[in-house]
């Protein structure tokens, strides 16, 4: 119904008419099942490119030509992608344990189940592109170049944590990674601003601005959409639709749960976010599209979080255990890729086991190192550093009492 209104509206652009007929013809629906993907003529060499065909349920589009259902890749890349997803999951499992051991304070939001989004996005960007997201950020921080040690160190509030113990679970930053943001939705216009800067500087780069299905209803998301479209900013808005915002199912928070259509005047692309290759293909395409000056896109990554909203939420009061179990056992992004890699003879069971083992061992070793790192000393210097840029501080900051005032 929503699309029909647009179709008959008189602000028609040529692109849209084309796209429309095509999408109606295609009639594909995104599922989180990537079973029909295939690859032929897989070369023996690790670095020799070949083509894989994505499942025909990978995408749905809104006012947009669908991206190609093929992806050029190498065995090496596929194995790296697999390795990365295993690493992210292992790191989140470590966070889960450390939280339960009461070594992590406050909130801790895990992305277990959603690994394909962070990993797929990273494998279609360069380090000159930008990513910004909300508090469910550990996987993104790792993919953007943070080390397990520094990320877990941050969770533990260590001095050598990625944010020196200042930010904790929700606030992590790295080159090309702008957090790690705690206020739901606020990162979206900020993401548009990152894209604005790319355009302003004449960079040929893209910004991926992520937010949740719950966050998608914040007014400022729509404000960002408008400016991005108005000024043709190279931004890929991305709704990580994991079906719930805390305990609220998407259809209880959102009048339209087709998040990829929410840009109204902006084309949209819905992606199977449980299929890392579909994510990679979508973002790769999106990047080409938007850096070619076609303006922003709204992507929707259909995904699922296995755990509760945060560690303090059991995650079972607003959804059934069966639902979680079904997603885990039939749609898991890691198991899904594994199956494909085996089917396509990209690798062997043994090699995958070795990758698993190596990735886990590497994560575990870094986690152990992080645990051994000291927390920041309780000195005023550590407390008051970095409120302002070094050298540009105020003369002093007031302490809890006059005596505790800190003079730089």
């Amino acid at each position, binding site marked *: 119904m929503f699309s029909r209104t647009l179709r008959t509206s008189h602000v028609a652009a040529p692109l849209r008419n084309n796209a429309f007929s095509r999408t109606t013809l295609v009639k594909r629906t995104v599922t989180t099942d990537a079973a029909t993907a295939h690859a032929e003529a897989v070369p023996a060499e690790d670095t020799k490119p070949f083509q894989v065909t994505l499942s025909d349920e990978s995408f749905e589009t809104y006012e947009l030509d669908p991206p190609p259902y093929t992806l050029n890749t190498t065995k090496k890349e596929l194995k790296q992608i697999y390795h990365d997803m295993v690493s992210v999951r292992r790191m989140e499992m470590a966070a889960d344990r450390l939280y339960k051991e009461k070594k992590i*304070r*406050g*909130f801790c939001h895990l992305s277990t189940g959603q690994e394909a989004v962070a990993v797929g996005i990273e494998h279609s960007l360069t380090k000159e592109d930008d990513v910004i997201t909300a508090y469910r950020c550990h996987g993104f921080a790792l993919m953007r170049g943070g080390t397990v040690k520094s990320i877990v160190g*941050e969770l533990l*509030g*260590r*001095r050598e944590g990625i*944010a020196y*113990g*200042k*930010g*904790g*679970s*929700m*606030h992590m930053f790295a080159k090309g990674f702008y957090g790690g*943001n*705690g*206020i*739901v*939705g*606020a990162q979206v216009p900020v993401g548009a601003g990152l894209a604005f800067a790319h355009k302003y500087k004449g960079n040929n780069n893209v910004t991926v601005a992520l937010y949740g299905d*719950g*966050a998608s*209803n*914040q*007014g400022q998301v729509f404000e960002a959409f408008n400016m991005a479209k108005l000024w043709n900013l190279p931004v890929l808005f991305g709704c990580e639709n994991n079906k719930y*915002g*805390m*305990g*609220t199912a998407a259809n*209880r*928070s*959102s009048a339209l749960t087709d998040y990829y259509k929410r840009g109204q005047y902006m084309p949209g692309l819905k992606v199977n976010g449980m299929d890392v290759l579909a994510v990679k293909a979508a973002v790769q395409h999106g990047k080409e599209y938007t850096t070619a000056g076609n303006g922003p896109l709204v992507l929707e990554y259909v995904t699922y979080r296995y755990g509760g909203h945060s560690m303090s939420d059991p995650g079972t*009061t*607003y959804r059934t255990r069966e639902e979680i179990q079904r997603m885990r056992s039939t749609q898991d992004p890691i198991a899904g890729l594994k199956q494909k890699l085996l089917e396509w003879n990209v690798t062997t069971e043994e090699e995958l086991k070795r990758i698993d083992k190596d990735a886990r061992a590497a994560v575990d070793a870094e986690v152990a190192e992080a645990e051994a790192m000291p*927390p*920041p*000393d*309780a000195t*005023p210097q*550590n*407390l*008051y550093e970095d*409120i302002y840029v070094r050298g540009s501080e105020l003369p002093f*900051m*007031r*302490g*809890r*009492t*006059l005596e*505790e005032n800190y003079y730089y």
Partner: protein
Amino acid sequence: MLRFLRPASRFVSAAAARPVARSAFQLFPRVPAIIQSQGYATEGGVKDYTVRDALNEALAEELELNPKVFVLGEEVAQYNGAYKVTKGLLDRFGDKRVIDSPITESGFCGLTVGAALAGLHPVCEFMTFNFAMQAIDQIVNSAAKTHYMSGGIQPCNITFRGPNGFAAGVAAQHSQDYSAWYGSIPGLKVVTPWSAEDAKGLLKAAIRDPNPVCVLENELLYGQVFPMSEAAQKDDFVIPFGKAKIERAGKDLTIVTLSRCVGQSLVAAENIKKKYGVEVEVINLRSIKPLDVESIVKSVKKTHRLLCVESGFPAFGVGAEILALGMEYAFDYLDAPAQRITGAEVPTPYAQKLEDMSFPNESLIENYIAKMLRL
């Protein structure tokens, strides 16, 4: 009352407390509420309540008593509240009265303000006041100022509530005290409950008050247990705004404090008594707008020393206000400059040891009392 106080001069004898707001504004006949027994019986009909239970009971009673009251906010209904304050309310009152909103603070805050302008009495819950920053324009510009801008034609009976201030281990964006922000706005009333009785009586008074009221709760207090008097367990219990409560009487030093810092100050006062035998008076402000200057001045007249303990940022804060008022109204009675303990001037850090240095605690208060009294 205040207008009779002369800056830095005579103290006018206590006037009678103002009549309780509810009698004047109650529009609905009261129906007896089915009060669930929430706590454990102790002597004299006094029961133990958590602050959470007290807030829950206040909401339940007001929903019961007045069909114009409804509760709206994120996760308040099906999830029973992010901090379980609204537990059971959906089951009891249905989804017309207890409403889950999308995550859209500016939007749902504005919407509840509109409903209030149209005569309903919304209780707009913010999951925490950190998120009310998204909506502060609606609170200040749409809710607080409308009655005045309309020349008194358009009231706005709304209650904004949620946890405010220090929360443990959640870093800079989730641990901030907004008392001073809201306390500075003409047109708003602002209350800061500490105990279970405070929580129940102030929230009920807020819902009944015909003006916009911010109820600044604290997450760490939700689980704390307090005795609740028999009177406070009744559905007609309200605490009038602008009346501070002397939680502990003393003659040597006055602590003016609010919210979680009340409990910390009481512990410090007990410790200092054990060590040095001095008696510190602890005043729980209960409401910061209106602010009970009279009780502060009266106490300072007795103790001659004033210390404010609060956990907001120091600059332009609650402590700054209390000290300024002390200067304006009690200068003659002070034997030493009034002092303040506040949150440190730093975004809340995550690491525990650094966080510990950023907010008042019992031992800091204790040491400061000792210093002020040269013990």
